[in-house]
């Protein structure tokens, strides 16, 4: 369709009225792009329609525009307020985060305190044990002191055997009545590994040794002081101490006799 044909077709009028199909509209749009006289025609037709429509219009109230403006501003301000910072929410979140941080901090503090309490409790137990030990030791020491001071106990020194251990000695606190003896072995050399000192009660006529026990941990009251039960022995005239293999011997090994001494009848 050339320019003149298009103008005479009546399509330009229908184009302005919006009654053309999409295809026909596209044709008119292309012609408008290419031919200024077509554009001019369309503008004239549009002006005619507008003037006619205006002639039909009743008077326009100014209120209409103000209401339109109110309406679009309301919508605008609503959409404007959306991206604006929501301080309430931010404060809320901040408070929540702070509260959580606080709770975690307090939990950690509580755990630390619990650990410290537990440590202190353990230390207390250790100290209590030490106190108990000290008390026991004190009791033992007092017991020893009582023994030494007591008139029931007689003290004897067993001198070292010149042939085996001239420097060695042992002390005996002997309660004849109750048949209890304390052997202080501090003057004896430390028993070597696998060996143990054995205490013998001796009667002289004839010479009869009777084992009254080993100086081992079971009899040690304190610091190499040993309590020996003499109730199995009828009478004692002398004490002898020999070094014997672990577990003790039936009869004393005479060449390992460290000390020997008489006691008062």
């Amino acid at each position, binding site marked *: 369709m050339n320019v003149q044909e298009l103008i005479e077709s009546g399509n330009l*009028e229908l184009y302005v009225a919006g009654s053309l199909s999409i295809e026909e509209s596209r044709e008119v749009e292309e012609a408008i792009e290419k031919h200024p006289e077509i554009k001019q025609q369309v503008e004239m037709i549009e002006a*005619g329609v507008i003037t006619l*429509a205006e*002639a039909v219009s009743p008077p326009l109230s100014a209120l209409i525009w103000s209401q339109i403006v109110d309406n679009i501003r309301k919508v605008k301000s609503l959409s404007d307020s959306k991206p604006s910072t929501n301080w309430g929410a931010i404060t809320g979140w901040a408070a929540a985060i702070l509260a959580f941080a606080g709770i975690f901090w307090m939990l950690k503090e509580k755990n630390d305190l619990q650990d410290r309490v537990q440590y202190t409790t353990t230390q207390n137990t250790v100290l209590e044990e030490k106190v108990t030990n000290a008390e026991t030791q004190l009791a033992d020491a007092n017991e020893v002191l009582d023994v030494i001071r007591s008139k029931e106990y007689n003290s004897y020194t067993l001198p070292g055997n010149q042939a085996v251990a001239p420097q060695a000695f042992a002390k005996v606190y002997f309660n004849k009545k109750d048949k209890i003896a304390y052997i202080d072995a501090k003057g004896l050399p430390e028993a070597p590994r696998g060996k143990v000192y054995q205490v013998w009660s001796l009667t002289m006529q004839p010479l009869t040794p009777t084992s009254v026990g080993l100086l081992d941990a079971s009899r040690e009251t304190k610091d190499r002081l040993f309590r020996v039960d003499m109730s199995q022995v009828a009478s004692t005239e002398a004490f002898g101490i020999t070094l014997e293999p672990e577990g003790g011997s039936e009869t004393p090994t005479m060449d390992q006799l460290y000390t020997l001494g008489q006691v008062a009848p």
Partner: protein
Amino acid sequence: MKQPDELILSMQDGNEKAFSKLYTMYSEALFGIIYSIVLDEAVAEEVMQDVFIKIWDNSKSYNVKKGRFFTWILNIARNTAIDKTRSKAYKNSKKNLSTTNFVDIIATSDNLNRKTNAIGIKKYLDALKPACIKIIDFLIFKGYTQKDAAKEMDIPLGTLKTRNRKCMQDLKTIVLG
């Protein structure tokens, strides 16, 4: 009438001032179209508000390179007005007024304080052929498709087009002088 493309682009960017200028340019014509359909000033004012809010909200869907801006807003105005006439409230309040057309409105108009001299136009419109009045009413004011208009008037499509063109030329000489 040259299309104010810059104002339209400005409005599409959210410029209220540009929108206000476009309102001044086109509001009266659209109000005429709307009134010719709803035939009630209060209803027409309601529709008018809806139409311009739609224009503002949907401004980005118009492309200055495709189609006339006036044609775009004319369509919005006619469709919104026609939707209104289909509402129950409107149907209950209005009796059968569908035969009224733009010439009848101008003929009964007594308002002289307008930029368009309706009285002046009225004289010349009497010279328009009744067929022309019908065609212009259908195509411009009622927004019929050309097919529907041709069917309504019981004439072939080609005849409708040429007759419409002739009518529009007559109209042009009347309204633009």
